């Protein structure tokens, strides 16, 4: 059997049940990838708002020198849970959950492979989130050692109290859950594709999820080992009297920690690519180059972790600088696809397109500053300063979250059968466009002028007041935008306007079925169309145009 030969379906199509059960129990025990995906995304959105509120409180504390909004210990808990939460409980679940919802639809599969394992993954993730956040209910508060929890600080000798124990257990649970979900979605993409859906006809988004999940499988076991090391140090902190365990932990942790950065990036590259193509009314430019770039990027991502450790004096800086800078080649190819698609399109600008277009230059700022900090002689100055804080907020908040919102506004009508209010959505976009730049641009200046990250306060003579005040005002704009986002979703549910099956003129298979899709994605009323390229519905329209 050749790689391009269509595969027989693995299971018989099941008859559509008479009615779709919508009780809490039905959702909690669902084996439908769409429900598990929506539970994951919904949980992550709720957590994004809660964990974003921690950041607003921190911005209030830093607005001026010597503020007294939070005590140092409470501040330290907030930045730890903000970082941990946004990475493990919000952005990674966004990435994996979006893939879980969409990949089976995009490749014409009736469901995810191993749906019960996938559901177990969700419950582990939710359990991990609850465990981690429950640290706030203990007398000593939540964990306060930062999101990468370096020992010996994270050991019982220097950070006693149950907050850290709950943090370790929560990260291990959520990490295991996300690993299981990623594995089943990868399996689905590899073996459950519909007739005609060869690997090189998978949409760009599905390919981005394949590359993402390959990284998850390569990297997340290392996170579990790192949590094991920390757990051992909770029982016997003496192990961290030995430097081997301290620096060893850093290597094991960052072996996970850098690929996960791209886990929180790739699916949004895929989502932006789909949105740019559909609202440019053209086939995505450079499909094969983009697929090769994603896979090369994923492979290289496993070799760059030591660039987090340039200032440790215990890493091969030249090697990690080399591999990290090489990432600009696949990243540049991805950008070539974005720009060529825009240059060759007839562009419309509904909300998903606005977020997708803004993603391109905003993420670029994160990428260009990334090359700077991949250079050790620059990193010696800016690492662990606010320059780094600005850098990754450009990649994650001004970049990946814009990609997520592009995908959210694009696929919301498909997933719910409801339309959002366009004016409120556009207001959300403009508040975020201005808000992210006002918040995160001053951080580069602060870092270059000597403001270390993770300080709970600063002195008037440090001269950090004005830039911090600007950043705090920007975070207020982000808060307003987020409120508009929530109100928009609530209004669309309370006063529903029905969405058609294909409101945008989409190219990929999910737009060929109903909104929301039936339990097994395609049914006799919504049959799978033939698949001849990575834009099957565009092919159909072209044929109808000729007929």
């Amino acid at each position, binding site marked *: 059997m050749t790689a391009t030969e269509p595969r027989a379906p693995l299971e018989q199509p099941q008859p559509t049940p008479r009615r779709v059960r919508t009780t809490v129990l039905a959702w909690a025990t669902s084996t439908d990838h769409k429900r598990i995906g929506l539970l994951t995304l919904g949980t992550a959105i709720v957590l994004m708002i809660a964990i974003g509120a921690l950041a607003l409180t921190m911005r209030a504390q830093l607005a001026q020198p010597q503020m007294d909004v939070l005590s140092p210990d409470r501040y330290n808990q907030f930045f730890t849970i903000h970082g941990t939460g946004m990475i493990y409980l919000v952005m990674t679940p966004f990435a994996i959950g979006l893939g879980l919802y969409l990949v089976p639809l995009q490749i014409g599969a009736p469901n995810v492979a191993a749906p019960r394992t996938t559901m177990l993954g969700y419950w582990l993730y939710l359990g991990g989130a609850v465990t981690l956040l429950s640290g706030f209910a203990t007398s000593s508060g939540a964990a306060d050692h930062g999101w990468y929890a370096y020992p010996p600080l994270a050991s019982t000798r220097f*950070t006693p109290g149950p907050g850290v124990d709950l943090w370790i257990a929560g990260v291990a649970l959520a990490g295991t859950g996300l690993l299981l979900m990623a594995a089943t979605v990868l399996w689905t993409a590899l073996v459950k594709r519909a007739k005609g859906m060869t690997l090189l006809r998978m949409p760009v988004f599905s390919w981005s999820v394949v590359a993402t999940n390959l990284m998850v499988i390569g990297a997340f076991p290392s996170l579990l080992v790192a949590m094991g090391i920390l757990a051992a140090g909770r029982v016997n902190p003496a192990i961290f009297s030995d430097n081997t365990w301290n620096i060893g932990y850093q290597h094991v942790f960052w072996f996970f920690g850098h690929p996960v950065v791209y886990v929180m990036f790739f699916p949004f590259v895929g989502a932006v690519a789909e949105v740019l193509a559909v609202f440019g009314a053209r086939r995505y430019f450079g499909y094969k180059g983009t697929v090769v770039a994603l896979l090369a990027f994923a492979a290289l991502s496993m070799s760059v972790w030591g660039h987090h450790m340039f200032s440790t004096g215990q890493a091969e800086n030249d090697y990690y600088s080399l591999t990290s800078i090489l990432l600009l080649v696949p990243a540049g190819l991805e950008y070539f696809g974005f720009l060529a698609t825009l240059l060759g399109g007839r562009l419309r600008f509904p909300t998903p397109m606005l977020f997708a277009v803004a993603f391109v230059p905003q993420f670029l700022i994160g990428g260009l500053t990334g090359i700077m900090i991949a250079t050790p002689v620059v990193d010696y100055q800016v690492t*662990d300063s606010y320059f780094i804080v600005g850098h990754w907020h450009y990649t994650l908040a001004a970049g990946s979250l814009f990609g997520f919102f592009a995908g959210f506004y694009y696929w919301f009508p498909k997933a719910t059968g409801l339309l959002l209010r366009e004016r409120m959505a556009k207001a959300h976009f403009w508040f975020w466009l201005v808000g992210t730049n006002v918040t995160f641009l001053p951080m580069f200046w602060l870092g270059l002028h000597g403001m270390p990250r993770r300080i709970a306060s600063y002195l008037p003579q440090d001269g950090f007041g004005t830039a911090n005040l600007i950043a705090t005002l920007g975070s207020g704009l982000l808060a307003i935008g987020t409120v508009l986002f929530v109100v928009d979703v609530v209004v669309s549910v309370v006063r529903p306007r029905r969405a058609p099956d294909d409101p945008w003129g989409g190219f990929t298979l999910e737009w060929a079925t109903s909104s929301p899709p039936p339990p097994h994605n395609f049914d006799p009323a919504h049959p799978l169309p033939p698949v001849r390229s990575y834009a099957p519905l565009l092919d159909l329209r072209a044929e109808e145009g000729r007929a």
Partner: protein
Amino acid sequence: MDYRGVFDQVFGLQVWIAVGVFVLVTGLLLGALVVNRARRRDKLPFAASQNNPIEITFAVFLGGAAAFLVWLSLSNNHKLDYGDTLAVAQQTGLAPGQQPVRVDVTAFQWCWSAAYPGSSTLVSGSCATPADRPVIVVPQGRPVEFSLTSRDVVHAFWIPDLAVKRDAYPDHVNTLLMTFPETGQWLGRCSEFCGTYHMDMDFYVRAVPPDQYQAFLQTGALPAGAAA
């Protein structure tokens, strides 16, 4: 070694490259947004969805750009003390066989101390207020080797104005070799999060003329009216 000089040169060049790339990409993007609006266009500007010669040429160009940036990074890293401290020290005027001046810096929760081998002088403080910050005295014009360690958790020794940083670990000594061509005093900070009072862990490094440095080693204090 001159960390600040190398930083300014490399970072300055990278900023210009980054600005160029950003302006180019954003310019193309904004141009497309204006010119390619559906209202202004009846059909696609071009129909092709791939062009192998252009894509491969671009990939080769990116490879060349990466090669240049890797060379920039590695060659400048070798100019600093990475991996070869004594050779660098000799470039900065240290006679062969002569050892650099060593200062043993120890970080702890939440301040710093400095000891001087062969001298009973000890610098420390509490860091609780700016007046309690330790002042680490070094000689002007001679290579200084800070040997950095920690008594408890991981800290980082950062002098922002001199663009230099190195972590301080328990059970491990990191060395940092640099010269102070001029006298002066610089603010240092801890930049690796180390617990409740991380934000207070500031210190000063003060470079004084060699004769004042000798007096400091012998008496444990700078002579009255020492150069600031």
